[in-house]
């Protein structure tokens, strides 16, 4: 029962803070570039506007145009529920196992890729093909790096990894652990469509990856897609910060630890988001054919992390 309550709380908190995270990232970038920016609350207004709009659907498009945004949203909500963000408590029925989380991420990825293909436009297809190429390079690295973190603890359950790391500082600062976290950061940037892999603020159809798959969606459909992909950012960024700084998570429903956990998550997420946005100011988008090199590099890091964990263990 405790677990269910805490997981529900986690979903509510994460969903509520996600637009703020995106807004803070955009605002930090705007301010650092010398622009005024729309303010950190703009994503809330964007979602409200999109939800109020009638979704226009292209002629000849199928039920996918309606279903894919919902699949993405639901899969993202499930990921948010499973990844230890506010709490390390779990619902017994659903294991928050590493492999379950990665599979759920893939469900969302495939849904968006199919959405891109659905309307039969060239941009959507182009975006889907690029998206799948990146997904194929990212998923093994996510698996490898979390696997490296799971070796010393002996389980692939994310919450136990976080708890074990939190109770023993010696397990956080290991060569394998550091390598794995670095590898994870790179793939999180790729997975969530940030620079240097994708440019979330471009208007150039031909260079887009994530955005080009959403071109045919409007209104409510687009709102679900936006919230769905933002939630993935929250979940993945939250996972990374909690693996790197595994303190402050709640394990029962007493008010003080829960409040502390919510506060800790908000601070960790927003600071991490601001750091990512600040780093992006100094980055440019790499040539598309160099993306595999970048991701292969992070795979090598993850592989070294696994090796180092075995040697250390």
């Amino acid at each position, binding site marked *: 029962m405790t677990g269910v309550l805490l997981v529900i709380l986690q979903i509510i908190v994460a969903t509520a803070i996600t637009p703020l995270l995106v807004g803070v990232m955009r605002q930090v970038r705007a301010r650092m570039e*010398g*622009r005024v920016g729309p303010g950190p609350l703009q994503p809330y207004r964007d979602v409200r506007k999109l939800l109020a709009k009638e979704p226009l659907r292209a002629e000849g498009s199928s039920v996918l145009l309606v279903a894919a945004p919902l699949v993405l949203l639901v899969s993202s909500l499930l990921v948010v529920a499973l990844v230890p963000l506010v709490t390390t408590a779990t619902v017994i029925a659903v294991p928050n196992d590493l492999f379950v989380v990665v599979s759920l991420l893939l469900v969302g990825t495939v849904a968006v890729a199919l959405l891109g293909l659905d309307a039969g436009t060239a941009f959507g297809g*182009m975006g889907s093909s690029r998206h799948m190429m990146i997904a194929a390079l990212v998923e093994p690295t996510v698996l490898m790096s979390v696997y490296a973190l799971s070796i010393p603890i002996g389980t692939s359950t994310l919450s136990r990894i976080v708890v074990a790391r939190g109770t023993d500082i010696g397990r956080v600062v290991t060569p394998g652990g550091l390598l794995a976290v670095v590898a994870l950061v790179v793939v999180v940037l790729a997975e969530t469509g940030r620079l240097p892999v994708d440019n979330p603020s471009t208007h*150039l159809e031909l260079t887009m990856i994530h955005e080009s798959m959403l071109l045919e969606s409007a209104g409510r459909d687009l709102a679900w897609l936006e919230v769905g992909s933002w939630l993935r950012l929250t979940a993945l960024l939250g996972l990374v910060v909690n693996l790197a700084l595994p303190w402050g998570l709640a394990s029962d429903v007493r008010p003080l630890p829960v409040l502390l956990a919510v506060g800790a998550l908000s601070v960790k997420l927003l600071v991490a988001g601001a750091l990512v946005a600040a780093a992006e100011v100094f980055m*440019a988008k*790499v040539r598309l054919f160099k993306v595999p090199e970048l991701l292969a590099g992070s795979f090598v890091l993850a592989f070294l992390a696994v090796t180092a964990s075995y040697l250390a263990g």
Partner: protein
Amino acid sequence: MTTVLTVTREQLAAAVGGLLGDGLRLVLVAAHEQRDGFRVVYVLLGRHDRTEVVVTMPRDDAWLPSLAAVSYPAGRFEREIRDLYGIRLVDHPLPHRLVRHAHWPTGYYPMLAGAGPMPVTVGEASYPFLEVEGDGVYEIPVGPIHAGLIEPGHFRFSVVGETILRMKARLWFLHRGIEKHAEGRPLDEVLALTERISGDTAVGHSLAYAMAVEEALGVTVSEEARLVRAQLLECERVYNHVADIGAIVNDVGFSIVAAHTARLRERLLRHHEEVTGHRLLRGAVTLGGASLRRPVDPDLVGRAADEAVELAHLAMSHSVVADRLHRTAVLSADKVRHMDVLGYVARASGVSTDTRADHPFVDLGPAFHVVTHPDGDVWARFLVRVGELGVSAAVIRDIADRLGDVLGDTATVSTGAGAGFGVLEAWRGRLSHRVELAGDTVTRLKVVDPSWFTWPALPQALGDTIVPDFPLANKSFNMSYAGNDL
């Protein structure tokens, strides 16, 4: 010095071919409707002289021998004349429609006297794109409506994976009938019209028109007025190059540079408003002269140019930006010469062509020199812009010193009949106007924007380029859609 050669259609190819062989360049071809037929004027420009080759034909036997074999631009001018006047082309190697939009009805030629307003109908046939066939080849149609606020143009890519095999641009969605609109209007009204041909080239177009009218009427413009004109032209170059530097870098996602060049451009535009009364420098060039409200501040322009150069160096020292720009969309010098490409695109391929050096209308002082780069890639086009920024800022300062407090000068412009030609180096390259006047009205205005010459080179630069690099290649050319399609 102008020579006029009147030839028959049979002699045309030999006459124009001979002049091209002597090193003259074809800069403008204008058709004119007369009572009993058509007259076509070919303007060729040499180092110090100009030759106009004139050919006439009766209305019931209106055909023109194609010169596409001797000059690539001639082939395009001919297609324009065919689409606008209905003159048949003989032996043209690629007689597809050019200017003609799909919704124009068959037999509608907008430049003819009896054409009337453009009827709104559904077009006859779709435009035939060459289909590339093979395993895994697919087409990407882009535009004419784009995701950003840019001009309309349709690009059809034939692609394998991400590599572009072939790209065809259809740009003719902006026919506003500017040349037709100018006919029968007073000289000063047409001056205002030319300022609006392409928003970013207000000085270039209005000045070329003013120079053409002055030549037709034999008006001598004082040196002060010519200096003010040259300064305005450089101001236009500076603000556009500043914007381009930011736009090119923004296309690789390094948006901090774009944010700051936008700030610099805004500072320059506000200064323009103080100097001329208009942010885009409209209204300063007059027939017979030029006048400012207050002198151009060379320190303000110089500081903006310096800051933009600093931003450009910041971008160039970024390894990812440098990697994206280097060896992307290479245009060879051979193609530049063959297609008669103009402006910074030609200079970035190592071809030193600049009307300011070849046909100056005023001495620009010791600071002026032509900036070139041998590589022909996006990097080179970026660097040429950066170099030209410095040159233009220095020229503006030089002219400001020579002018002192002088705000311009104007000569009285009489009325009369005649034909005149004006050519100058606008910021995109050589720009020319040719006018024919009768009394106090314009009977024919022919405008050639540098984009007309340079657009066809863009697909030629895309060999080995990948689709996501196309916007970068396109931005490094930054040709005008509105100047191209009148």
